[in-house]
């Protein structure tokens, strides 16, 4: 027992003295609210230890910066508010991050593994001439990370040899750091001419929904090809509303035009890990399982008893969804 304590004390001392870990977290927000994945990245950053700085860039940074200042364990929030960051284009964000890194010399630069982080982080890594690590699900030490490969069918542990570790974090693999108990100061980020003439943001067409956001919802109800039409998806919506759930879909349902692309769960869509995932009329292809198999409880409703989804489902119901789903909605 004592030896263990001594060992870990020595290890900690070595860690803090020899390495001076300092992490830059790139906040994701939409100029109105902070995106929840940023809180997961902050938890991941805490696992590395050392100093945490958060960078908020955008055309309006106030709300996100104010929320982040309250997070416990952050040393400062750097704010870069400018028209240059319209659309959060990687071409404008990258030089800002490089300038910030030049000033503070971070050991780690991290962002969430969302569309935003995936577009930005590899570009930053290339400019720093380091190899990025994508979609990290566990942090073993300041240079050793675990990430899924082959659609989540294998877990690879990698040790990064580069001096700066540039990583994206899988949001569902880390608890969201609560935005309370802290009082970090805000400071202006290094000033510079960050507007890029290589890219121009034109517009965004976002799907409007009153339901919870898919990647952070605690309950998700997903429909697949078995729904047979976009109209029949209303069965899914009714069940989801009863459960206050977000609605997802398989690629088959998206490709068939039943629902928009941004509802797709899977390797090429969103990764979700809710408390409860209900898969309706989804066979359970490898690519779909990659996006939901870390859910705490999985329920499958499918009329094909051989469907692979039943191999991962905690509770399976072999039934016609057109009968079972309305009945389930009624009885809840």
């Amino acid at each position, binding site marked *: 027992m004592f030896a263990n304590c001594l060992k870990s004390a020595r290890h900690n001392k070595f860690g803090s003295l020899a390495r001076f870990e300092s992490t830059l977290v790139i906040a994701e927000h939409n100029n109105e609210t902070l995106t929840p994945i940023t809180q997961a990245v902050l938890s991941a950053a805490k696992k590395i230890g050392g100093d945490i700085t958060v960078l908020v860039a955008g055309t309006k940074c106030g709300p996100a910066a104010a929320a982040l200042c309250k997070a416990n364990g952050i040393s400062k929030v750097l704010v870069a508010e400018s028209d240059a960051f319209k659309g959060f284009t990687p071409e404008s964000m990258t030089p800002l991050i490089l300038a910030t890194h030049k000033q503070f010399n971070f050991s780690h630069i991290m962002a969430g593994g969302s569309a935003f982080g995936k577009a930005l982080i590899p570009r930053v890594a290339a400019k720093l001439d380091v190899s990025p690590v994508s979609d990290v699900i566990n942090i073993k030490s300041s240079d050793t990370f675990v990430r899924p490969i082959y659609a989540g069918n294998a877990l690879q542990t990698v040790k990064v040899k580069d001096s700066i570790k540039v990583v994206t974090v899988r949001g569902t693999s880390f608890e969201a750091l609560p935005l309370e108990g802290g009082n970090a100061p805000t400071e202006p980020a290094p000033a510079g001419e960050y507007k890029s003439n*290589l890219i121009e943001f034109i517009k*965004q067409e976002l799907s409007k929904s009153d339901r919870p956001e898919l990647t952070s919802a605690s309950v998700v109800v997903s429909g697949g090809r078995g729904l047979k039409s976009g109209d029949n998806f209303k069965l899914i919506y009714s069940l989801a509303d009863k459960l206050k759930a977000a609605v997802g879909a398989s690629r088959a349902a998206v490709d068939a035009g039943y629902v928009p692309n941004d509802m797709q769960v899977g390797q090429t869509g969103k990764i979700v890990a809710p408390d409860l995932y209900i898969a309706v009329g989804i066979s359970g292809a490898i690519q779909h399982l990659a996006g939901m198999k870390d859910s705490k409880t999985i329920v499958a409703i499918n009329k094909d008893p051989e469907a692979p989804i039943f191999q991962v489902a905690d*509770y399976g119901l072999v039934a016609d969804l057109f009968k079972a789903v309305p*009945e389930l909605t009624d009885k809840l």
Partner: protein
Amino acid sequence: MSRVLVGVKRVIDYAVKIRVKPDKTGVVTEGVKHSMNPFDEIAIEEAVRMKEKKLADEVIAVSCGPAQAQETLRTALAMGADRAIHVEVSGAEYETLQPLHVSKILAKLAQEEKANIVFIEHGQGELTITREVDGGLEVVKVKTPAVLSADLRLNEPRYATLPNIMKAKKKPIKKVTPKDLQVDTTARIEVVSVEDPPVRQAGSILPDVDALVGKLKEAGHV
């Protein structure tokens, strides 16, 4: 002359259930069906469509990998690419070849081949692109030369027909090495281990909706 450079990769076929090696050094690749990465098929298809619309003059397919990467290049040629470049990387060097290395190789080739687009080109020197983002779609305008990456929904790749497969055999594949391109492929990461993910506990099949409602209530979900 507008040229499109398309990176293609030979990977384990997407439908194969992979197996982790018992010594935890990687996944089993010997004797396993390989194909072109599905995203790369889409990129090739888009480049060929650009050529068919006379928006591009030449489509060059590139692959970094061992000798078998040539099969993937032949597939690209059969789909309509004009010529191919095989950047030969094999053995231990290929095991630790990272996106950083491949991007440096592609960057060198894009300069050497004077490609206007690594993947798609538009004559006016400007492209309007719709990107798939988390909440929906986003439209941006980029100046060429530009690098694009294809989403699954960009198009539906064509099947190579037998005559085109025969014709592809006569198309040129140039062979180079990273060294020729002065790209250092020193490993930047060390793979410590590759393991199976945790296996889910086997679940149960329930007789009816009532049983399901009961289980959901029991677990506190409703």
